[in-house]
């Protein structure tokens, strides 16, 4: 399996030298292979948001390196980083982050038009991903006119339409009711298993994490333990995870 993401000795320290400093990440190492579904779990303040910001190139590590598709993004300048994000990374956020003034179709088209994909190719690509996510009916509507679950599907379509190397999901079910959350997680699992989409999800929700094939636990700025799903069913993995969290407390 090819390696998609490699994180090497990443640290992040806030505060200037000589002032009171706070180390949010204390040497993070891990890799994600192509087609993997990895969840990073941690409580508030564990450093997971900092880590996600660094992985998504929105923030720079104090030391260490992040390679996506073998490219070290610490060597890139601001424009190259922007281009890198637009090509290699797909984002799903907790609060959808759809543009309210564009229709759902236009929202999904945005990453493609930003990349300069020819206008003729854009609509077929949107239709394909919309079909895959079951949102063909709502493409002409505005985000404000559809449900939360549908919004998150539109967001997922937008994150995936340009076929990024990796899908980064930040608490994607955080703002959804349990039914919509379940549907979204099923879809993400399906996309991972059948379309081979490499996914990295950051969450504090054990139920959401149980859909992943591997879970990394982050605590006080360090990756402590990891759990592998292997041959377990999702329910079994979930129970194992709950047991682990209980004993870990």
């Amino acid at each position, binding site marked *: 399996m090819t390696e998609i993401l490699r994180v090497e000795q990443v640290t992040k320290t806030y505060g200037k030298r000589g002032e009171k400093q706070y180390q949010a990440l204390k040497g993070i190492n891990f890799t994600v292979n192509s087609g993997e579904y990895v969840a990073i779990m941690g409580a508030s303040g564990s450093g997971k948001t900092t880590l996600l910001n660094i992985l998504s190139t929105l923030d720079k590590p104090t030391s260490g390196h992040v390679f996506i598709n073998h490219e070290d993004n610490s060597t890139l300048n601001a424009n190259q980083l922007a281009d890198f994000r637009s090509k290699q990374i797909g984002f799903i956020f907790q609060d959808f982050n759809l*543009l309210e003034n*564009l229709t759902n179709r236009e929202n999904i088209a*945005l990453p493609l038009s930003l990349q300069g994909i020819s206008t003729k190719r854009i609509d077929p690509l949107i239709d394909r991903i919309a079909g895959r996510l079951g949102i063909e009916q709502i493409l002409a509507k505005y985000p404000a006119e559809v449900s939360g679950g549908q919004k998150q599907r539109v967001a997922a379509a937008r994150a995936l339409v340009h076929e990024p190397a990796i899908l980064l999901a930040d608490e994607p079910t955080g703002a959804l009711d349990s039914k919509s959350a379940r549907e979204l997680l099923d879809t993400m699992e399906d996309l991972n298993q059948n379309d081979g989409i490499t996914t990295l999800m950051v969450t504090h929700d054990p139920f959401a994490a149980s859909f992943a094939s591997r879970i990394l636990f982050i605590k006080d700025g360090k990756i402590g333990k990891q759990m592998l799903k292997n041959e377990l069913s999702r329910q079994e993995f979930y129970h194992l995870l709950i047991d682990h969290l209980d004993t870990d407390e």
Partner: protein
Amino acid sequence: MIWKLSLTGIKSRLKDYLVLFSGLTVASMVFYMFLAIAVNPAFIKNDIHVRTDYLKYIFIFGIVLLVIITLVYLLYADTFLLSMRKHDYGMYMMLGAKSTRIGRLIFGETLITGLLATFLGLILGFGLTWISLKILISKLGLEIPHFQVILPNAIIITIAFFLVIFLVVALANVYKLTHTPVITLLHEDQAPVKFRYRPFLRVIEAAGGVFLLAIGYYVMTLPKEQVFKIIPTALVTIVIGSYLIFAAVFSSLVGLLLKRKSFSYHGIRMFTLGQLKFRLQSYTRVLTMISLLFALALGAITVGLNFDSLNDLATQSVYYDATIVSNSSAVKKAESKLDVISKQTYHYKETKKILYFDQAELSKQPAKYVSVNYSNNRGVTQYTVKALQVNKISDSNAIDNTIFMRMVPNHGQQKVKLVSSKELSKLSGQKNFVSLLRVKDFRQAYPIIAKIESQQVKEKPAFSALVPQSKAAFYGNSLAYSSSFEFMGFFLGFAFLTMLASTLMFKVLSGAAGDKAKYRMLYQMGTRKQLLRRSIKAEIGVLFLLPALLGVIDVLFGLQLFKDLLENPYRSIWIPFVIFIILYSFYYLLTVKLYEKLVLTKE
């Protein structure tokens, strides 16, 4: 404690506050200047040539217009102020501050900001008034060496006007904020925008808008006999037409562009268009108002500058540039400064019933006069220069005696009789003379001629009866009229343009807080900063361009109204346009900079 919080809140947004503050300062500064000119005692004393009381009325008219624009401007400035503070107020209330307490805070903040700006504006207003009066007095050719710029009346009225406005605004703010749920105050930025779809209605609105504007523009080209029908019709059709154009035409155009995927699926265009589509909807009223007031401001400057051509008209009805009746050294000295191209002198004696003129002098050089013919059916006045028919002088029906009225004071009932020089000398009574002068350039000579006439009135009080008929008097009055219109059009137009451009700026900036998340998201998605900046420039550019464009078209058609009054209403139209472009571009760039600062976060 809560005042301390409020101060820190203001401090953290100091730059935005400074923009707001400077806008308010300019408003009170210009207001004071107009008032100080309108009530200035320097103009109350009448000059013999210039009726300065015109000025007062023209400037009071200016103040009325200024009050209207100031009110509109303050309304939008206040919305911006509130948009900056809303979140903070919500936070204090969430933390448990009582709404009466917050009410007092809002009231205090609004009033203090307003009054500080008013006071600063007053102080700057003294300087501006001094400069303006200097310019105005020299333009009018008046001799007023000492004038006041600090006028208690004007100060009191300015303070009272702004105090009342800010009191009302402060109370309205208190009401608005204390009646808004805390949660809305905190999260208003994130509230989804409503968009109305009614494509059919939209088409009707668009067609109606274009139709009404066309009618409005058409009626302004009609003959001016029906001016009382034309102006109300144009006003109604253009106001409603502009509104419909902004409500339907422009946003439909954006919608069409958005649908044209070969255009919109290109870089960040889709986002820019999406922003515009929604903005045009919520900006309909402000854009309409701005386009109309722009037209008024531009029109005021253009027409104001063109009133100068009336001065030439005023001088056409009198043939001679100056009348000299004194040979005192003072008059002679002044006369020597004139660039005289012709001078004819006539001697006469008068009794109660008869005016005796030297026949040889009149026959050799018959005096000329201008015959004015108003009978033209298009209302255009015709001026013809005629020479006095000396042989017909005894026939009082055949001769236009106005010429003698311009030569001899209080000539009315006397008969004119021509005699030889010898006979004239023999007649009893004082031998008088009158010299009629033509100079090379009347406008240039006007100040000297006006001085000569004043001097002659001093020496020979009876001469004052001739002054109102003189070319200098006609010109002086016309000058007072046109200069004050020109001056007012210029300053008022300037004040209008400044306030309108900053009104638009405040309107755009008020929405910035809500756009921050969008730009952050685009950045996360991998949009380059330059592209985001370009999008902001384009979006704000369109919002600035549309009302300007419509306003310019309004002016171009609107000037048709003046085509009978002014020789060429389109003359020197480039001056207001250049001023407009410079001012407007300045505000556009400032808005873009401030907006970028508000929405683009540093990473």
